[in-house]
């Protein structure tokens, strides 16, 4: 039975994801029986689900460490080093997000919330693993659909609902772009398998076929830009970040960006007939477009953030500008590619930036949610006034993460920006130097509003007496993130090596 064998073999490559999905199934099936018909659940139920989720994630992490790399696989899944890196990153981010969600969620909806989170994580991994356009699209939807539910579950007031519906409609719309682009690619090459696609793309006729292919790629880029919060596909971000619960914002600020870049890096090289990520860089027209989007995105994001009074909106704009920084890495890519193997690669810088941004951003949201209470969550900058007096440890950790976001030493954020800068600068073209300069200038602008967050925490009198509601797991997540932010600065080499290996660059 060759079909069964194939299936068996393919399943062997995705054990971590199978663990996650199995947990999701258990949770969705069992949860309704533990909640009464009126929607009441026994107190403390969320702790049980939290433990189960963490266990599942830890098992997945263990399986991930043990899982073999199979670069030559041509079946539906290809667990190469790129996928390995992304999987590790999502699973660890998943653990941190679980910790935040633990505090935020209510007993009655805990199972669904955790299950959605796990499904999203599995979806990100599938996009990275997939060796097929259909698989990639399914993975993307596996991220989107649970996200809608998770956002809706988070907080049940009208703001949250409106934000969720906005996100839902626009996300579907952007998925349509992606699907449309993917269908063009299929139409032109006659296959959805990435390995085959690569071969066919090499033999694509210059002229019409090339033009069609790049048009298709631009559509995919436009669709995925929604997830990267690139201008002009960013509109939903401030509204949604403001509307949904901090745990959801933490997830939204990071995982969509990851899955967006992963999908881009899966589809673009294949459609240009390049097998190795390390040897790929965007075509000139695409590069110009991406650079333009990057410049507009980071500048617009930062300038808009300057005027925000609502801290969640501010972080949304900050997240947009970070999307712009990351696009710099994508635009520069590996323009040296195979010629100089140890050259600074934009893709490696991007791969380094993603997890560093992830820990900083998740840390900020974790600590914001820890500083607020359910009745009075942190919304405006004024809510943060004098946080250093009421919650000194939280304020300190929050400052570390915010410092990281602004790209100042001694944090990993500094090195992440430095790497992007080095990559852009060393490419030595006018466009890349412009990118590098814009990046540096934006880091200067951004310092002003990040500093304001720290300023109000330390240099303002506390106005409200916040009754402490224990949010131990959020604080734990925040502590891990802030320590990691500093540790990455001190010991960055292993992460850099892993990032470089992920895009196929072997470091000496």
């Amino acid at each position, binding site marked *: 039975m060759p079909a069964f064998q194939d299936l068996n073999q393919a399943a062997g490559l995705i054990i971590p994801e199978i663990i996650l999905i199995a947990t999701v199934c258990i949770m969705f099936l069992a949860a309704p029986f533990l909640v009464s018909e009126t929607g009441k659940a026994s107190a403390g139920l969320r702790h049980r689900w939290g433990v189960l989720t963490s266990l599942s994630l830890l098992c997945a992490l263990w399986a991930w460490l043990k899982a073999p790399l199979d670069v030559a696989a041509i079946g539906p899944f290809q667990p190469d080093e790129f996928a390995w890196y992304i999987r590790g990153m999502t699973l660890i981010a998943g653990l941190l997000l679980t910790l935040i969600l633990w505090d935020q969620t209510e007993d009655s909806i805990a199972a669904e919330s955790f299950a959605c989170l796990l499904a999203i994580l599995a979806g990100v991994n599938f996009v990275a693993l997939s060796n097929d356009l259909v698989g990639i699209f399914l993975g993307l939807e596996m991220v989107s659909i649970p996200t809608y539910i998770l956002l809706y579950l988070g907080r049940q007031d*009208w703001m949250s609902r*409106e934000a969720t*519906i*906005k996100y839902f*409609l*626009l996300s579907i*719309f*952007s998925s349509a*772009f992606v699907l449309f682009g993917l269908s063009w690619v299929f139409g032109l090459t006659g296959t959805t398998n990435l390995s085959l696609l690569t071969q066919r793309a090499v033999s694509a006729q210059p002229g019409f076929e090339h033009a069609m292919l*790049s*048009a298709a790629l*631009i*559509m995919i880029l*436009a669709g995925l*830009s*929604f997830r990267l919060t690139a201008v*002009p*596909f960013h*509109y*939903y971000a401030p*509204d949604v970040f403001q509307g949904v619960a901090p745990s959801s914002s933490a997830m939204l600020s990071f995982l969509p960006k990851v899955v967006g870049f992963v999908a881009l890096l899966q589809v673009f090289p294949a459609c240009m007939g390049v097998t190795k990520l390390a040897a790929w860089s965007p075509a000139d*027209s695409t590069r110009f*477009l991406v650079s*333009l*989007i990057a410049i507009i995105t980071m500048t*617009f994001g930062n*300038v*808009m953030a*300057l*005027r925000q009074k609502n801290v969640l909106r501010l972080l949304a704009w900050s997240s947009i500008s970070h999307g712009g920084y990351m696009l710099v890495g994508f635009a520069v890519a590996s323009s040296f590619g195979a010629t100089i193997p*140890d050259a*600074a690669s934009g893709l490696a*810088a991007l791969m380094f930036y993603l997890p560093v941004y992830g820990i900083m951003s998740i840390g900020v949201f974790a600590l914001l949610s820890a500083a607020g209470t359910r009745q009075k969550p942190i919304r405006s900058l004024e809510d943060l006034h004098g946080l250093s007096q009421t919650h*000194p440890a939280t304020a300190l950790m929050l400052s570390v993460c915010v410092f990281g976001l602004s790209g100042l*030493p*001694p944090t990993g954020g*500094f090195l992440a920006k*430095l*790497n992007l*800068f*080095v990559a852009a*600068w*060393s490419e*030595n073209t006018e466009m890349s130097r412009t990118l590098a*300069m814009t990046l*540096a*200038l934006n880091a*200067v602008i951004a*310092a*002003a509003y990040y*500093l304001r967050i720290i*300023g109000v925490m*330390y*240099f*303002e*009198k506390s106005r409200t007496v916040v009754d402490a509601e224990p949010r131990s797991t959020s604080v734990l997540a925040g502590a891990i993130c802030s320590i990691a932010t500093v540790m990455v600065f001190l010991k*960055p*080499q292993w992460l*850099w090596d892993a990032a470089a290996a992920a895009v196929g660059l072997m*470091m000496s």
Partner: protein
Amino acid sequence: MSEELLYPLLWLIPVAPLASAIVTALLGPKVLKYRSHLPCWSALAVSFLSSLVLLYSLPSVDSQANKPEIWRAGEDATAQAEQPAGEAATAQPESTDGGSAASGESEESRLAAAVAALKAKSDAEPKVGPEIVAFGFEWLHVGKLEVPFELRVDSISAIMLSMVTGVSLLVAMFGSGYMHHDAGYPRFFAAVSMFVFSMCMLVMANSFVLLFVFWEMVGLCSYLLIGFWFHKPSAAAASKKAFVVNRIGDFGLIMAIFLIWTSFGSVSFSDVLGNPATIARLHSVAPSLMPAICFCLFLGAMGKSAQFPLQVWLPDAMEGPTPVSALIHAATMVTAGIYLVARCTPLFEYAPLVQLTVTGTGAITAALAALIALTQTDLKRVLAYSTVSQLGFMFMALGCGAAGAELVTPAVTAGMFHLFTHAFFKALLFLAAGSVMHAMGDVIDMRRFSGLKRALPITHWTFLVGAAALAGVPLLAGFWSKDEILAVLIAAAKTSQYGLFFGIVLVIASLTALLTAFYTFRAYFMTFCGPEKFPEEAGHHPHEATPIMAWPLRILAVSALLIGLAVGPTHLFAGYLQRTTGLTPVEGHFHLDVMALSVFIATTGIGLAWMLYVAMPTVPAKIATVLKPFYALSQGKFFLDEILLVLVVFPLRAIAWLSTLFDRLVIDGLIDGVARVPRTLSDRLKGLQGGPVTAYAGVMWIGMVAAVVLAMTLL
């Protein structure tokens, strides 16, 4: 001391304050409380002693014969680094040729002269002074960029280290008396320890990247300490201003680092600064490279060292506790810019125009700040402007290398010497001012007190010593260093090439020195002479400094008295400093003519101040009414804050405002317009309250179409 023993010592210098910072931050508020000064004191004492040992034993380190293993490895790396650097440089000529051809003949002749100078230089032996490089760990390895975590001590950093740790120790001692029973006592010592750690690392960094990291860290500590009394809105605003203005300079510094990296293929000091031949070759291939690098470096230095037009943050930084002003904003952090420019002398030698800019900026800053200091009534602000002015003096000296290769070393020596002596007497002046403030119940307005001579005898005599040293009274610290600066300016003015320029700068410098003597003693006379008067905040009996505050004052006063005499005319300082890599030892000279000039300047200035503020105390008011516009100009600080507000802050705010407006009117308008189409078709989504979602989708659609069209047209 054998070299092996020096390595742990090297690490001990930054690690001790770091440990103290961590201990104080963790245990301070709960356990140590008002004993928080103990870890800080002991750590700084350890660092100071280590620095002294290092200072003493460094000259005996023979870096040529007895290089440690790592240093050898560094050399190999240099050899390798030259390869790609050469390639990078050869890729440049097309662009640079066009540039130099356009700038005409004078440029060509200058180039020829420069090339000739280069030849002479590359023939000479690489100038390597005694230095110790301690390898920590592999920190960064990104593409071709390799940055190990390394400490490096050579002559210039050994001097800086002992100065930094010594002054910090005294300031920390003073601080424990000054901050007595402040609620933030542990926080103060944690931040000070952290600052000393960062500052030590800054001067010990062996690469530009590491230097940048700690450059930012000292900025951060300065931010935390300026805003120490955050309940004062002015303090919070000042700390933010300091940070943001510094970021502008940091932008220049990071640009410089990347230019250095792309052209040299390395960011380590040993590779970049230790190979005159490489610099010469790079310069001959791309003549505009070194000026660009140096200009960016100088931009960074301008921010940190508060040079015009980025000087606006320093006077406001006086909102911090006075010991902080003494330590960070007078003696140590603000001199980091001078250190950077002095350290990069081998690069600046190839950028005479930038050196002229350095001198020019220094002259403008020095004169401007001195003019502003004339009319300030806040004692600390007078000192702050005087710091800005003195930093200008140092930059004035540093740029003199433009006049000729033989002046490079004296120029750097003069600048660094002034930095060294200034640290002592300016810290002394600030601490004495702090003591006055302490006694006067935090009143610092000189119009509200006078005649403190009898009430505060120790403060009085120590302040007098500091003021005399600053004014340049013969045989005191400031006299010797200011002398050196004037001497090197005179030497530069005598050269043919830029004689006129340096002549003008010399005149400015002399006038500024005169103003310095005047405003320093104006402050002295206003505070300590005249009828005895106390503000009501002081209570009936103003209390003299407690012993823990008095002893640092005494020690600093003795230093201000003697340190110039001890290391200036004996050529000790210059001889030591000039063994730094990149400098050529030169003979010391006595400049009797210059000394006569300085004596004249100092006595005139002090005499004028005496006449106006002691002999005829009614005259200054009359002068003020006669010269009202000028007086207003000086008192209004030349309205530089306001000008900056109009030129920089308003446009930026306008951009932010315009973006919001654009977002609101144009984009939202567009969105509304787009939204109207589906809305007329369907009313289903009307329930949504905020931004119209169909419109967002519409803009996304337009964005996609635009992207596709753009990509197609570019194809």
